[in-house]
């Protein structure tokens, strides 16, 4: 015979204004199995909780129902109170008399009767409740950071500095990402590589960081605190333990004209190459697609040149396995190329560039050693037109969002140009100027007021080439739509920022949500920007949405803290509201027949196979087993199971039916 305590809250006036709470307590008090029923103004308050605790002891209650606000508000509060009084938390349930009743109805007899029904339902449920214990899951204290740009670098350093191990995986031959391609950064005009390379070196030398470059994630299995990551170490063809980074092979390589990815296609590199002089690690890889040996078995000059015999022709890709506890995604972004724009030439005009390409021109380590020169004829341009919002904010082109950083970097580019070419004329065609960060607005004003950059509000309809010049057909909307035609020497498009290539595939591998533009989805846009909906996987940087360096660094540190918080415990505590497959005594073992419909249904990959073995080790049957760490308690498997062998603890079929029958039998 149950002894349930019922506590009805007035919630100030929130409930009592429309529900006759005294009557509810009175009528429930007369129910079979209810040992004690009261009402009180604020159940969640200290005295309120004390009533519950004292009642548990005094009446030896074996169940508690609190009729109050939403469980989302105070379930933890009341469950904790019960636990403190010695009653298992999961024997305490809440009936939502506020959001489900008093707040949505007028004061009437029916409203009170509904409240009574709701409490009755929960009482019948609690009669079937069982005591449950929290689940503990062990945590591997090693993090995996995917992506070696500034976001990945910052996150790795922060996690490593808390004393935990980090594995940093980067698919390019060097870490550094787009930040290493920049010449100067806004709003301070700091030299980008000068502030980045110390961190890159720190990563390489940090005792807690294991760096894998020219590597990609092959697969990720498991769950928070217990992932197994398989990483593909692509064959570099160079043995890094013997290579000294002398660079002799690079100088002698005969294949010299491969478009350099680091220089955004403006410069060239060799087949055996280091992407840029400050690369970390500063050792080369061989591009097998373009190398003469791999193409037709010829050459081998690098091997002949190498003093320490580091060339490994026959090395294959290697797949290694690592146990990790958390993942930080820091895969960054990319920008659209000039070929994306029909009205700006489909990419055929050599002197129409993207912002990233302009960065390479302006950079001291770039193809022109920092001089702004036209790719077509090497001349110094006297007139440059910068087109902002090229592709961004353009639903017709499929990119309705704003790429955030272009207004700032366009102003920066114009300023750098004016600083390098004193008699140059630069014009920026813009729609709006988005300069919201600290010192950003002042930076743009500096471009306009001190560096005489000409800002015209209007978009450019088209750009075409005539007699070596680029004719830009724009408009000044602030003058009522006056057409503006400029004969420029160079045009720089601030092209839209997009998700890095391969984002979709990576997200699918990791079961992380992503938006239609392949940016990874954060768990909550306002309050959980560095978490994903997949437990244990965090986000940092532009892979979530275009953003600038300060925000990226902030986010990376935020993700690192989440990882550190996860690693601060040896065990993860989880709510036991999960699915369980029933187990019975032999010879039945379970009513589960091993059809694994639940496995198909489960959105969280939480169903595993369990082999039932006899005493002699022979296999009797394989049945389903729920992984306690992954299961989220959604109940889809319960709906699918045809033999009713799987059920949710805390919301068993029996308990739910009890609630339904209570309502129907009234």
């Amino acid at each position, binding site marked *: 015979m149950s002894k349930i305590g019922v506590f009805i809250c007035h919630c100030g006036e929130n409930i009592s204004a429309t529900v006759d709470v005294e009557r509810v307590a009175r009528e429930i008090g007369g129910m079979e199995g209810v040992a004690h029923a009261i009402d009180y103004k604020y159940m969640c308050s200290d005295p309120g909780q004390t009533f519950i605790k004292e009642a548990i002891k005094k009446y030896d209650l074996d169940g508690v129902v609190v009729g109050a606000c939403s469980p989302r508000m105070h379930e933890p509060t009341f469950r904790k109170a019960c636990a403190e009084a010695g009653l298992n938390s999961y024997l305490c349930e809440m009936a939502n008399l506020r959001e489900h009743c008093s707040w949505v109805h007028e004061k009437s007899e029916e409203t009170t009767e509904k409240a009574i029904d709701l409490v009755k339902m929960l009482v019948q449920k609690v009669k079937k409740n069982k005591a449950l214990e929290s689940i503990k899951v062990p945590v591997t204290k090693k993090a995996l950071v995917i992506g070696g740009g500034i976001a990945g670098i910052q996150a790795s350093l922060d996690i490593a500095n808390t004393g935990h191990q980090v594995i940093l995986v980067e698919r390019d031959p060097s870490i550094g990402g787009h930040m290493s391609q920049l010449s100067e950064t806004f709003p301070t005009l700091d030299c980008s590589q000068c502030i980045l390379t110390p961190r890159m070196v720190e990563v390489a030398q940090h005792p807690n960081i294991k760096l894998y470059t020219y590597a990609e994630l092959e697969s990720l299995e498991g769950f928070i605190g217990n992932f197994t990551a398989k990483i593909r170490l692509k064959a570099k063809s160079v043995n890094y333990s013997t290579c000294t980074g002398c660079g002799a092979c690079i100088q002698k390589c005969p294949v010299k004209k491969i478009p350099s990815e680091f220089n955004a296609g403006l410069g060239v590199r060799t087949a055996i190459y280091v992407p840029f002089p400050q690369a970390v690690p500063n050792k080369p890889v061989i591009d097998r697609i373009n190398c003469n040996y791999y193409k037709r078995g010829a050459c081998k000059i690098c091997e002949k040149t190498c003093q320490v015999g580091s060339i490994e022709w026959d090395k294959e890709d290697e797949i290694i396995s690592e146990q990790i506890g958390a993942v930080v995604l820091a895969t960054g972004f990319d920008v659209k190329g000039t070929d994306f724009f029909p009205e700006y030439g489909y990419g055929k005009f050599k002197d129409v560039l993207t912002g990233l390409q302009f960065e390479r021109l302006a950079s001291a380590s770039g193809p022109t050693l920092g001089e702004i020169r036209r790719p077509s004829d090497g001349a110094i341009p006297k007139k440059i037109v910068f087109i902002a919002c090229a592709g961004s904010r353009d639903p017709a082109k499929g990119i309705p969002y704003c790429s955030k950083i272009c207004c700032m970097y366009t102003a920066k580019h114009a300023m750098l140009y004016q600083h390098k070419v004193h008699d140059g004329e630069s014009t920026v065609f813009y729609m709006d100027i988005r300069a919201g960060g600290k010192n950003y607005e002042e930076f743009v004003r500096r471009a306009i007021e001190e560096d005489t950059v000409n800002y015209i509000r209007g*978009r450019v309809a088209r750009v075409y080439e005539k007699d070596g010049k680029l004719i830009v057909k724009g408009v000044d909307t602030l003058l009522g739509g006056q*057409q503006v035609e400029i004969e420029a020497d160079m045009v720089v498009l601030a092209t839209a920022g997009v998700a890095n290539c391969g984002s979709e595939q990576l997200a699918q591998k990791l079961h992380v949500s992503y938006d239609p533009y392949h940016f990874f989805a954060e768990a909550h846009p306002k309050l959980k920007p560095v978490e994903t909906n997949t437990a244990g996987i965090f986000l940092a940087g532009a892979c979530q949405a275009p953003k600038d360096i300060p925000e990226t660094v902030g986010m990376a540190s935020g993700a690192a803290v989440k990882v550190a918080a996860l690693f601060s415990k040896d065990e993860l505590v989880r709510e036991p509201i999960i699915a369980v497959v029933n187990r019975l005594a032999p010879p039945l073992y379970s009513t589960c027949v091993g059809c694994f419909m639940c496995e198909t249904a489960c959105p969280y990959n939480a169903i595993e196979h369990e082999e039932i073995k006899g005493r002699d080790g022979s296999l009797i049957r394989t049945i389903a087993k729920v992984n306690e760490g992954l299961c989220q308690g959604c109940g889809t498997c319960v709906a699918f199971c045809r033999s009713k062998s799987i059920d949710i603890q805390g919301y068993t079929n029996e308990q739910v039916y009890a609630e339904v029958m209570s309502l129907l039998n009234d």
Partner: protein
Amino acid sequence: MRCYQCGKCTAGCVLASDMNYPPSYLMRLLQTGTKDNYEKILSSNSIWLCLNCENCVGRCPMEIDIPKMMDYLRTQAIAYDKLHPDSKPIIAFHQSFLDSIKYTGRLYEMGLIAAFKARTFRLTQDLAIAPSMYLKGKLHLLPEKIKDRRGMKRIFAQTIENVKTKNV
């Protein structure tokens, strides 16, 4: 409305410099929703100079159908009778064209030119070209008539001559 005044339409419009209000400015006038601004539009020459070359809508990031809007504004302008003087020869041409096909079903160039000159008093325009056209066999003296001329008249009667008909 979706237009965020980027101006790309105006930047690419071949006749923007001849218009009272280039397309993006016209959109802004429409957006204000005031009667004064709407009348400005109807009595401008922009709606008549627009060639429907579709350059604007082809580049518009919001895919706003400006040519269709211009067609609509033209019918509105005629209905309200607030026409810009520049519109006269253009409307005269359109009307002469339509008159020609109303009666014969196909364009009768001589008829078109005659009607146009009558409406605009541009008696000497293109006088020099006419003989060459005729000698090159490009100008028919007599109209080509389709068989179903009654059907043609009926179409006209139910559409342009029945302006009370709600524009679909």
